[in-house]
């Protein structure tokens, strides 16, 4: 155990393992119960398995001011942040996890500025203030190649980086490469993600933003997740239209890209806005304060990206389109650039932890039934 954060997580989970009252809340406690003592690898795995539902904090007979001072969501949240810096690739950039909120904010601001500046440089201010309509209107502001090439390169980089990060997590938490091919575990993990099973808190939701049980955070998160997926689908279909069918954007309102993009954008605005609102009003006692900047920057960036996206749609027939489009593309760029060094990581790391959980619970149950038989 090197860091004080790891030591605290070890202390906390050792007490939890002698109590086990919380085993019905989430995946962390059943995973804990398979062990008597914890390695650093185990604790990093628990940290990424924790969904921060906070049920265990309010239910805890040892929570502060008890002298045991147990605060599982805080201890695991602080360790989770450390694991992001540990696992992310390329590791030379792990400094970005210090003051991540400011870093991501800066990246976003620079991205917006860069897109606007380049547009101004290459297309002049007519691109900003002229009205552009009809096929290819967007590309008269920002050329097609200027969108396609950087984002494709960035996309490839992101995929490599996320994959390397997951591979690091898998190895560092004791997983074997071959285990990743267990389709049954993936099926279970996908289902856990799609329904956000561990924000259900055993039925009535999680204790967020305060001590009361509520599904509101789960619903907002669903809106973000499915909104993001709809936007991804919209972009993919548009790409297909453009490349293979030769249909050039903008598309009419009742086309798949626009319908999906609109639904996704609205869901993202509602979801990310809701998450930000809840974060502002939450009880901070069980929270890992160090993660605030990262959480807020990522959620705000999602909110601004979807908000400007909807603005482009709304005003695409007007002279404001050029300006709005460049701002929107700037935020999208910022979102993509910061993706491997911010809160987005939770999506892939949590998924990997859930796969690992499905694997070892399957094994544990098989062993248990063998023992009983």
């Amino acid at each position: 155990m090197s860091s004080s954060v790891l030591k605290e997580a070890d202390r906390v989970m050792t007490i939890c393992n002698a109590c086990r009252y919380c085993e019905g809340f989430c995946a962390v406690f059943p995973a804990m119960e398979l062990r008597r003592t914890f390695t650093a690898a185990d604790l990093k795995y628990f940290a990424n398995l924790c969904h921060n539902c906070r049920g265990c904090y309010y239910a805890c007979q040892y929570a502060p001011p008890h002298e045991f001072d147990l605060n599982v969501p805080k201890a695991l949240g602080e360790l989770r942040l450390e694991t992001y810096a540990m696992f992310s690739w390329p590791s030379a950039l792990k400094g970005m996890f210090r003051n991540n909120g400011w870093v991501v904010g800066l990246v976003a601001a620079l991205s917006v500025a860069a897109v606007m500046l380049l547009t101004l440089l290459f297309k002049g201010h007519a691109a900003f203030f002229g009205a552009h309509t009809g096929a290819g209107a967007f590309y008269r502001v920002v050329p097609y190649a200027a969108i396609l090439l950087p984002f494709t390169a960035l996309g490839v980089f992101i995929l490599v980086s996320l994959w390397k990060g997951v591979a690091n997590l898998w190895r560092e938490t004791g997983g074997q490469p071959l285990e990743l091919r267990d389709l049954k575990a993936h099926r279970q993990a996908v289902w856990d993600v799609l329904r956000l099973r561990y924000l259900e808190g055993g039925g009535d939701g999680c204790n967020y933003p305060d001590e009361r049980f509520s599904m509101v955070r789960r619903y907002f998160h669903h809106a973000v997740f499915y909104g993001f997926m709809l936007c991804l689908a919209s972009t993919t279909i548009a790409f297909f239209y453009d490349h293979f069918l030769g249909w050039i954007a903008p598309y009419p309102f009742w086309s798949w890209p626009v319908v999906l993009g609109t639904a996704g954008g609205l869901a993202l605005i509602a979801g990310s806005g809701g998450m930000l609102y809840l974060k502002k009003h939450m009880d901070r006692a069980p929270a890992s304060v160090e993660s605030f900047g990262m959480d807020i920057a990522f959620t705000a960036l999602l909110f601004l990206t979807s908000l400007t996206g909807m603005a482009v749609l709304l005003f695409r027939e007007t002279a404001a389109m050029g300006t709005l489009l460049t701002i929107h593309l700037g935020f999208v760029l910022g979102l993509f650039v910061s993706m491997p060094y911010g809160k987005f990581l939770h999506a892939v790391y949590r998924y990997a932890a859930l796969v690992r959980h499905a694997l070892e619970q399957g094994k544990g149950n098989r062993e248990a039934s063998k023992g009983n038989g």
Partner: protein
Amino acid sequence: MKPEDRSAPNLSRVYDVLVVGGGNAALCAAMTAREAGASVLLLESSPREFRGGNSRHTRNLRYFHDSGNWHLTGPYLEDEFWNDLLLVTKGQTNEDLARFAIRESKNIGMWMEQHGCRFQPAMRGTLHLARTNAFFLGGGKALMNAYYATAERLGVEILYEATAEDLEIREGLFTSAAFDHRGVRRTARARAVVLASGGYQANLEWLKQSWGPPAENFIIRGTPYDKGRMLRVMLDQGAQPVGDPRQGHAVAIDARAPKFDGGIVTRLDCVPFGIVVNRDARRFYDEGEEFWPKRYAIWGRLVAQQPDQIATCLIDSKSIDLFMPSVFPPIEAGSIRDMAARLKLDPAALDDTVQAFNAATRPGSFDPAALDGCATEGIEPAKSHWARPLDTPPFYAYPLRPGITFTYLSLTVNRRTQVIMQGGTPAENIFAAGEIMSGNILGQGYMAGFGMTIGTVFGRIAGKESVRYVVERLKRS
């Protein structure tokens, strides 16, 4: 001003029902009385963070049910329930009241869920009790949180850090209670009172009266707020006691546990797999007499009877993974003599004890899941099961002290939970529920989840009967 004080109770009024205490029984009484239309004031002596008495350390409740449901794996009927109770109490129970409690517990889980309780399905850690006992999701503190939220929503007025100190009783009728609220003495008036303020197991002075100086070395497993004030006041006022004042439910727990409120995590389940020695490095009781769940409750008393009320459980590396992990790491040593040095025991004496024990063990097929017959021969005290030589280092040790869970001395009550005074007359408007009256039913021993049954059943009855009394009195006047 703390947020929970915003609706400070109006102490100039006369409440219908005053509830003294803030655990399971108190809340069940308060919610029931309030739902029947009464105005209710509840005085909880702890701060909000530690509310809920010993209930905050509980995890499950046992209740009578005809068939299994989503959180119970099968039926648990009255006769089986009664026989289980008879077994643990060895007859130290009031059959009429006990059977009444069992019948009143029928399907009580439904009422609990309606009042905010959330159960969990049978899981790895709860399977052994999954048919008879319903487990609260998140444990007793989660249940208390739910009940407090429901009580607040219903309009029960709750005052924290309010410790009832005295009861004004005129011609057998309760009129008011004096209480301390953060250093200020105040008075609450009510037409009826429900005493649900627990036993006196956190009152070391009182424990010393029955146990003598050794009580100084006891660890109190639960809340530090159960001082038995209401029990004392009522006994002084002439209430009829029940239950042995010299008895308490005590188990052997880790000696490194905090003095109060250590709860479940300080328990140790290693005794059947090793030997237990006292301060003089001598064994003193058969460690393998029975399965641990059937014996753990005698070890508190056994350790309490040893010099300095301290003992040590010693195992070797063969057994370290056979029991639930506990909160404090074991003391580790490479040899018995090293271990003695670490434990500040006489090395020669400990060596003798271990060698004598090892020599008395016989080959057999060790099986932690069965009464395996691996017994010692020719040694006193014998070890009847799971006796294997301590010969594989590293050796591990856990220090043990008596940890008291609850006391048996209680107020006698009738089926309406009215407190019975000397001479047998019930106090008309003084009701008692929970640990303060559990000695009527649980005169000896303990049965998992039954304290919560008593609290829930009699809490509800006390709530109902106190309102019945208030309504009848108002009708008369």
